[in-house]
């Protein structure tokens, strides 16, 4: 079994049913081997030859790969099915033998147990993480289709807030004589409209995302949270594109970026979390109550005017400001503007909004998982 001068390891009892393997009879030179489940990747090294033994079990069929660390060495791979297989001895001086024995009589834990009620939120989140590749595909699908269908494609991402900026500039700045701190009103408004567009577009598409994907949801299992998350992901790409355009606008007006720009990633994360929470909340509410879909545009409109998007926070009366800042978008939008245009930060508002965002996100996760299954029954 162990060729002279070779490293050997023996993979005993790969249980097809339990998806669990047990290692036995390890040659003392083989180190770093552990027993584990199929989903984990087994990696061990032969301490003498430096051979790296990798068994990638990402699939039903276990395959063991033995890669030479010196490079250029031949790779042995053996496909293992339900019978004992021994890889042929190599002509290479460092011969490695792999043996995998399948057995299905060891008692084991189920891979998954289907039962009524919901699992712990952490378990659900882990499940969502396992399916992250699907999230990528869902985002990729939406981006691809959108850019194929519309004539202007990616330009819309910039045009939408830009046209709104134009409208607000004409009405508020030129006709209403708004004063927008120290920066030109157009830049001021656009810097606020970019995060707002991200938020409002995500919420309005996200709210109908579960209903819109009924066909997939009722035919195949995957964590449903991925659906509203994918919507936000698509809009996040839009946000980044729109930000590039903003830098162009700032260049045009001769506004220099300052060190405040370092806060931008933090603010993007904060706004994504908030957007995600609101979108997934409405996606479930929309199935529970039919009229949420009708009410939502009004709510979004209201939210827009109670956030400092087209006017500065300064315009809100002093004694109302604390109450006003409870709107988590206040801190975020003011933060975006300060970070991009080099204005002083309103730290209090940013922190308040971060706290509210986190609390709300927690509530929404609880809500989502509580209602998810009951709502799916209705689809």
């Amino acid at each position, binding site marked *: 079994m162990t060729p002279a001068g070779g490293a050997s390891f023996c993979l005993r009892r790969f249980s097809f049913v339990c998806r669990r393997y047990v290692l036995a009879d390890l040659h003392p030179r083989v180190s770093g081997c552990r027993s584990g489940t199929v989903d984990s990747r087994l990696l061990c090294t032969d301490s003498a030859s430096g051979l790296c033994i990798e068994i990638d079990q990402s699939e039903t069929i276990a395959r063991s790969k033995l890669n030479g660390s010196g490079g250029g060495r031949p790779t042995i791979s053996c496909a293992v099915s339900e019978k004992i297989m021994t890889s042929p001895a190599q002509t290479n001086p460092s011969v490695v033998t792999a043996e995998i024995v399948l057995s299905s009589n060891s008692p084991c834990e189920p891979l998954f147990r289907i039962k009524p009620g919901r699992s712990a939120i952490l378990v659900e989140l882990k499940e969502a993480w396992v399916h992250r590749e699907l999230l990528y*595909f869902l985002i990729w699908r939406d981006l691809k289709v959108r850019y194929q269908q519309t004539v202007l494609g990616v330009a819309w991402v910039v045009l939408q807030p830009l046209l709104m900026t134009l409208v607000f500039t004409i009405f508020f700045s030129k006709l209403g004589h708004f004063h927008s701190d120290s920066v030109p009103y157009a830049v001021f408004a656009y810097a606020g409209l970019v995060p707002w567009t991200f938020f409002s577009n995500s919420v309005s598409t996200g709210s109908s995302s579960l209903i819109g994907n009924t066909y997939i949801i*009722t035919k195949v299992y995957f964590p449903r949270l991925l659906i509203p998350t994918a919507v936000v992901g698509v809009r996040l790409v839009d946000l980044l594109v729109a930000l590039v355009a903003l830098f162009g606008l700032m260049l045009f007006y001769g506004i220099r970026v300052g060190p405040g720009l370092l806060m931008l990633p933090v603010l993007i994360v904060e706004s994504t979390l908030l957007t995600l929470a609101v979108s997934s909340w409405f996606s479930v509410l929309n199935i529970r*109550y039919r009229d949420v879909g009708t009410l939502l545009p009004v709510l979004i409109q209201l939210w827009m005017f109670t956030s400092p998007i087209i006017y500065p926070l300064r315009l809100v009366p002093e004694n109302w400001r604390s109450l006003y800042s409870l709107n988590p978008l206040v801190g975020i939008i003011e933060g975006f503007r300060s970070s991009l245009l080099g204005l002083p930060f309103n730290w209090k508002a940013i922190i308040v909004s971060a706290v509210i965002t986190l609390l709300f996100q927690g509530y929404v996760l609880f809500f989502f998982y509580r209602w998810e299954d009951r709502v799916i029954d209705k689809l």
Partner: protein
Amino acid sequence: MQPIIQVRNISKQYFVERSSNVAPTLREVLMSTIKFPFKSRNGNGANGDELLWALRDISFKVDPGEVIGIIGRNGAGKSTLLKILSRIIKPTVGEVDLYGRVGSLLAIGTGFHPDLSGRENIFLNGAIIGMKREEVRRKFDDIVAFAEVERFLETPVKYYSSGMYLRLAFAVAAHFEPEILMLDEVLAVGDTAFQKKCLEKMKQVSRDGRTVFFVSHDLMSVRQLCSRVLLIEAGQLLEDGKTETVSASYLRIVSQSENSSAESIR
């Protein structure tokens, strides 16, 4: 032998709402809260709802490598059972232990997007039914060859003929290799030659030691594929056994109900 699936006393209850199948409006909920402030409203229990047991107390065990047919009349609960086993819906009571990855093909081409090309849809559909990108990449050539769509890989699938579309969709699904596969009437696609190819593929899947659940009305393909059959009637597991015996009882039930309905017409 260690079973690969163990189903213990599962039941599924649905609420059938009085106003067809739509969610309550906010107004209705508000009104009922005002009228009955202490009544528990767990989302579903609005007054007048009817409870319907789609499945009642189903238990069975399946060993690895078995090919199980599920037969029964329309509305018997076959699809509900398959959906519970696929984790799409949860049972109201009971538990299911799964000792392997489950892949479900309850419909063909789930998530196909008409505007994307054949190539793109293979990857998208693969991801949706649960394949890893790497897995799709490795099987890509086989999938394309199986579907016989080599020439149209870069064409959006909306320009495909319906036969090509179904062939591609089935090809992706057929190359998915979970330990437990759930199939809901998906074999009924394409022309006779392609159907034969699909049936052959399914037989191969079971030869590889995978467990297959197969819901169908077509007793012919059930007889060809399955070694064991579950007969479901009105949400209950009526019979569980060898294909010949159970399909005979199924035929008896069907003919009985036909006779009785014929009599009621008379």
